[in-house]
């Protein structure tokens, strides 16, 4: 397949993930959608790496995966802390930055 197909697919996945981040209220699902966007980026990276014939893109994608894992861990920690303090698990309630 031409590289273009992979890139177009990655664009679609990215868009779906972005729409999900904004539409969903459950922070867990928001994090999942963030994962979607990251994965779309990974796909694009790997496609370009194949295009150039250099593995640098794959290494990049690997590091992105590591970062995604860290971010998931911290995000989940926050959600667990929210749950522990009996806060409603709802993004819209977290409006302390209001001003």
């Amino acid at each position: 397949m031409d590289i273009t197909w992979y890139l177009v697919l990655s664009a679609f996945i990215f868009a779906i993930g972005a729409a999900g981040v904004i539409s969903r209220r459950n922070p867990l699902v928001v994090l999942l959608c963030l994962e979607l966007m990251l994965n779309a980026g990974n796909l694009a990276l790997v496609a370009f790496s194949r295009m150039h014939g250099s593995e640098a893109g794959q290494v990049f994608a690997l590091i992105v995966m590591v970062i995604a894992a860290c971010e998931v861990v911290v995000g989940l920690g926050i959600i667990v802390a929210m749950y522990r303090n009996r806060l409603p698990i709802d993004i819209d309630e977290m409006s302390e930055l209001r001003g």
Partner: protein
Amino acid sequence: MSATSYGWLVLAFPLAGMLIIALGWRVLPGRLPGWIGTAAIFLSFLASIGALVDLQDHPEDERQLVDRAWTYAASADFSADVAILVDPLSVFMCLVVSGVSFLIHLYSVAYMSGDRGYARYFAYLNFFVFSMLLLVLAANFVILIIGWAFVGAASYLLISYWYRRETAVRAGIKAFVINVIGDVALVVAAFLILDKIPSLDFLTVFEGAGAAFGQNDGMLVAACVLILVGAFAKSAQLPLHTWLPDAMEGPTPVSALIHAATMVTAGVYLIARMHPLFELAPTAADVGAIVGCATLVFAGTVAVVVTDLKRVIAYSTISQIGYMVMGASIAAYGAGLFHLMTHAFFKALLFMGAGSVIGAMAGIQDMDRMGGFRRAMPFTFVTFTIGALALAGFPLTAGFFSKDEIIAFAINRGDLYAVLAIFGYIGAFLTAFYAFRMVFRVFLGEAVPEARELEGGHLAHGDPVNPMTGEPEDTDVGFPGPEHHVAEQAWPMKAAMGPLALLAIVGGVVAIPGVSDILEKFLEPTFEDSRFHDTAPTTGAEVWGLVVGGLISILGIGLAWWVYVRKPGTAARARERFAWLHRFLVNKWYFDELYDAMFVRPVATIGGFSKRVIETEFVQGTIVGGATGVVRVGSTFARAIQTGYLRAYALLLLLGVAALTLYFLLNSS
């Protein structure tokens, strides 16, 4: 030393006194500021004598000396210098001003002691004397106007001396505003003269006036009328007289100095100095004479009914200056200035006596509450009576010779002036009456409690109140001090009043018709260019005038004795029968109400309108409020973005990315 050097010294001493007191008041203990001020004026008086002596050494036609210090302002073909003119007229004024000021300073050393603002008082007083001397020694219009303005400022400072007293502050503002009218008139007059004669030096202007202006030239008449307006404002003549009675809010020595002996005579000096111009514009001179005459009658009628002791003397001042203005306007310069001198003596004396009585009354000034002080205050009684006799023109006092000489001159010139002379005699009758009204009401009759206390050797004390409104006060700075002084107990007051009493009796010797004409000859170098120089009345006519005047004054004193001593209820009964007249006079012919309606209220309305509409609504509301309102609305919009919703922020991020991508997409294609 030359006469002009003495002239500069005359100015320098009061200025130095003022600076020393004003800058060093914190370190000068007790009464020392008072003594410094008094010494400064005494030195100034000595310098005036020195100038006099030196001036007389000059030959007769060289007695108008000008000395320039530096150029004050210079432009195309005009220059004004800081220069003084030492001639008989200015030396005469210097002697009168510095001499009487010295005695009043001496009086104040005791009278004002105990007041918290003692040093400030003497600094102001010295400043005033400096300004007055600058005014009379000025050699050109510029310095004259500077001195004129300073004198107005000093008057304001001293009237509102007790600055926490609201009535005093308002009186000071009133005086200042009316004086400014005169200042403006004087400046415009100077412009009118400068228009035709390219110099403002007095001698140059006087010499060139005949050539530049014709007889009764419109512009010259206008300039002279404006000079008269300035003179009337400063000398409290109709219609600009309303400030002087209110100016009695100031301390009594201030009233004595500024509003009797010196400042208010500046107008008379001005007319006398400008006599070449007035003789070229007889219309203006007539205006001056008529206004002076009207004023003296008006003030006399009001003085007959007013009950505040100081205000009686104030109206008397207005009346007597009416005589002087009339005299100077009809070219009786010697007589007018002679009356200026004697008036300074006896009016200052009367005020000093009044101050002593007010001190005995613990600050009360209402004559209705006074009576029978003659046993408690013998010295004050005697000196006050001497002053009243001089004021009334009792035969052989100084006032007798001076006042009646003016009237004799008026009769001599005939026509209109003879009519004025009749009013002059009416005024003289009223003067004698109210002068002794004061004497009889205050010193004769039943002794009031304060008098009886004083006879026992103890000075009465009351709660400090505002003498006009009765409002309670305290004795801290800005209000009168806790001490009251009477002449019998304070030697500086006696030392000041004594010489004045003496002068009020013997001061007439300088101009007894037919016997001595020292004053006339002395002033001749200034006035010899007058057209009326040789129209002085003959000795016989003058003697007749004196006789008539003396009779009138005795009649007036007699009537006062009848009303107030012989038949004590007469005044009350007259007041009832002529209640409407009494009301009219007591309200000062309703001048204050008239000015209030004509000027004060419209200006206040405009001011209120400006404040309410223009300032508050327009400037603050629209312009300032509009600017802040726009910012506030904008910031409200901007603040709406800070919702705190994470999703909104995320949406904005997304939007930004989409926009950026679009931009790059468009650019690269």
